[in-house]
């Protein structure tokens, strides 16, 4: 079982977390100006890197979303930060 560090609660068991989304995808807006291709890319196209990945996770027990950097091969967690503009 992995240990994930919530920036608000500290290290906790992985069962307390949900993966949310790959980090860094800005929502294209307004809808009327967004092409089908750009929207489908936003919805479905992920880099899914082998190695270091930046991801948004939800800590279910405190309800906070945060950004975690982890290695998808070694499972090593190298960073954990609150969403931009919000310090714990």
């Amino acid at each position, binding site marked *: *079982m*992995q*240990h994930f560090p919530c920036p608000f609660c500290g290290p906790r068991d*992985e069962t307390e977390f*949900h993966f*949310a989304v790959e980090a860094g995808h800005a929502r*294209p*807006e*307004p*809808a009327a100006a*967004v092409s*089908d291709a750009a*929207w*489908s890319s936003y*919805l479905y196209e992920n880099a899914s890197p082998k190695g270091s990945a930046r991801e948004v996770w*939800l800590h279910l027990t405190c*309800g*906070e*979303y945060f950004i975690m950097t982890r290695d998808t091969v*070694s*499972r090593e967690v190298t960073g954990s930060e609150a*969403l931009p*503009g*919000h310090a714990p």
Partner: protein
Amino acid sequence: MSGWRHPDLGAEIDRSKPLRFTFDGQTIEGFEGDTLASALLASGHRILGRSFKYHRPRGLWGMGADEPNAVFDVRHKGIHWPNARATLTYAQDGMRVASVNAWPNARRDLFGVMDFAQRFLPAGFYYKTFMRLPWRFYEPLIRRMAGLGRVDPDFAPAADSVQVAAACEVLVIGAGPAGLAAARSAAETGRVVWLVEDARHLGGALRRRGGEIEGTPWRDLASQTQKTVKRAGGRVLTDTTLWGAFDHGTFAAWQRGPHHRHWRIRAERCILAAGGIERPLWFANNDLPGILSAEAALHHLHAHGAVPGKKILLATATDNSYPVAKALVDAGADVTLIDSRNDTPGLEGVTHMAGARIEAALGRHGVTGATVSGKHFDCDTILCAGGTTPTVHIWCQAGGKLDWDEDRDMLVPRPGTAPMTVVGAARGTLDLATALQEGKGAGAGGDPAGDTFPASDPATPFRPDTSLPGRQWVDLQNDVTLKDVGLAAREGFTSVEHLKRYTTLGMATDQGRTSNFGGLAAMATLTNRTIPETGTTTYRPPFQPVPLSAIAGPARGALYHPLKRLALEASHRAAGARFREYGGWLRPAVYGVGDEATLAQQEALAARKTVGVYDASPLGKLDVIGPDAAKLLDFAGYIRMSTLKPGRARYGFMLSETGIVYDDGVVLRLSDTHFVVSASSSHVDGVRGRLEDARQDRIGRGQVFVHDVTQGFVTLTVTGPKARAVCGAAGIALPDLAHMGVAEIAYKGGKMRVARVSFTGDMSYELSVPTELADTLRADLDRALTGAEGRWIGLEAVMILRAEKGFIVIGKDTDGQTMPQDLSWGGPRTKRADEYLGKRSLFTPAAIQDTRRQLVGLRVPEGGSVIETGAHLIPNHGPRRSLGFVTSSYFSPNLGRPVALALLENGHAKIGAEVRLFNDGLIRVAEVTPPCAFDPKGERLNG
């Protein structure tokens, strides 16, 4: 009958405590401390089972988890173990033990005829043969003949295994010499050490090899280590299988005892000292009973005083076997040592044959002789010392890689590829002094990974030899011969992973501990590759079979997925409610005695005739509070809520970004800055998560908060023409509310929220009170109901009432493709100019195509029966294909006919048309209608 009990030897048995058990009905005598294996060995029993495929007689091979043959069905004191390894199961007085895979028993197995058919049963036989007729034709026969033990469907093991989470600084796996030394030295530096040992006793190889360590008997090291570890705050777990290595230093261990314990251990550091396993040798008939691992024979001798035979042949290529021969001679056996090396010195009292090799075992039900370098030789037992395979399962589970060490003829851990330190035989160190030194160094914080091994003579490797005549077994448990490996190689299954699947080599309870190396080496020889080129199979948890009951612990039955319970459950039960799960909640299905469907019909009828009350407490109550509350709900929802006036409620949807309807429900606005979102009862957590997502990532945290207060309130919904009267009679001072009006009133010293919201189509009042007022409200309504000839109604009736109205349940009447326009809620899609969750997805090509499945109602011809939920809708003409399916279907007691909802391709344009329904081969017709079948004008909302 060749095994016997030595009069004195046997350090781990208590001769003052004899015991008896039965094996295939025969009484076997043993002592406390005997395993089933040692007791049977000492009693002279040889045939302990029949082989998997050919039903050949098989006897004991090993001493632990490596045992491929002696797998038993054991019953004792009401407990049943279907596949118990004889070597790991301690004998208990009164046990009933049966061989598996044999009928009627191992000694007189009637399926033994399979052995004569062996040439018709090569590897892949099943795959090749049973393609012709359906598997179900052969299955009963094959299941009876093959496979190991049988699960007793009537036996339910107790859900009493304790689950414990623990942490330590240093986890030492294996309490052999290296593990003991590691644990002791780590504890001496003040570390909290956990030492986990599979066996009941500490010592590992010392238990059979004995000797002195640092000038004192080895047992001193064991007891000292135990003391030192405990003093430093650590633990020593014996009879405990460390079965899995997982991410971030998590390990799983299964501890046996009167009650199983399942440990989840988090370790800062791990030292693996799992030892090694002896390899077999390959010669004709090498599967006969009476052929054992030499190390196992030594173990059974010293631990239990059990000796496998009187005239013993020991085949080896290493000095390590000489002490084994000596111990057996000292115990009184006649031993001949066959060393494949030339020029090896003899041993006093032991017949010695240098440069010789064993080519065949002779005998039918057990060893009666052998062919050694072409000459006949009389013996009753053959011991094999084929070399050592390091036990690297845990290393590999943790991601570790292996290197082929040519000199030592073994696969060893490649340094730096897994987060643990390996010491002793597990890294190929067979020399005691070096193993102790490695353990000591690792315990103090070092890692011997960089150390070179002490110079030793290159091992003389044994390899399967395909030129020898006769059948040579590579895998005893799965009945795989060298010929099968050859066949796999010829047919192209040369990868070890393919070899494993094709021949089943290395599967089942022993997971190839004694067979993987032989299979690998044979494949390498047959394909002219080196061992590293041939590769190894993957190691996955568990290290050895672990009962699922130990892993599951108490999380079974009602505790497996605990349901949410209503605050008023007891009162509902007292009123005759029959409960069922609805979306994770245990809720009343119907009230009363008798047929459930009939009761639901009666309840649905009464609710429209007079009045019904149901417990709607699971309905979500998400407080959305703050100046930005409306802004948040506008973005997160499909229907705008900022235009909602305080004191009013509005039906809304929440979409996913993909435009798919995720949830529906009513939003109440209590004030400018306070909304309550009534999420569906099973979607509360998800809706809250999505609201939080929008809040934290878009709207901003400072001006709005989301609180889930669902379980703080009880909601009882009063519905029907007499709803207002019943509320009045219950003493509730109803405010003057129009449909979709909301107000808070004083009630019994607290507050009650009254919402005129209807899920039934009749005038309804949702009454929500804090949980502490729940009993009061229930009692008040109960009294009033009696006077109004109303009744409590369960969820089954509510489902009928809402289906009559065409009201949907998300996930039942919608699926993973349903968008709001498919539910006739296209308005906001065309009108809203602002951004909201899922907006762009409502305009993709898929969202606007005319083949979308849309919600419709269905009406069967006069006198027709209720349609089966799930029935497909198919075209009236042309090729048959699914146009959609029936999502909800009931008999409506209020209309006196069936009603149904369906998702139908382009359904909105087909209202009034006829459609065909297909279910289980039968076709019928129905008329497509609007979803609402009852009171389409909504006149009953006002009573």
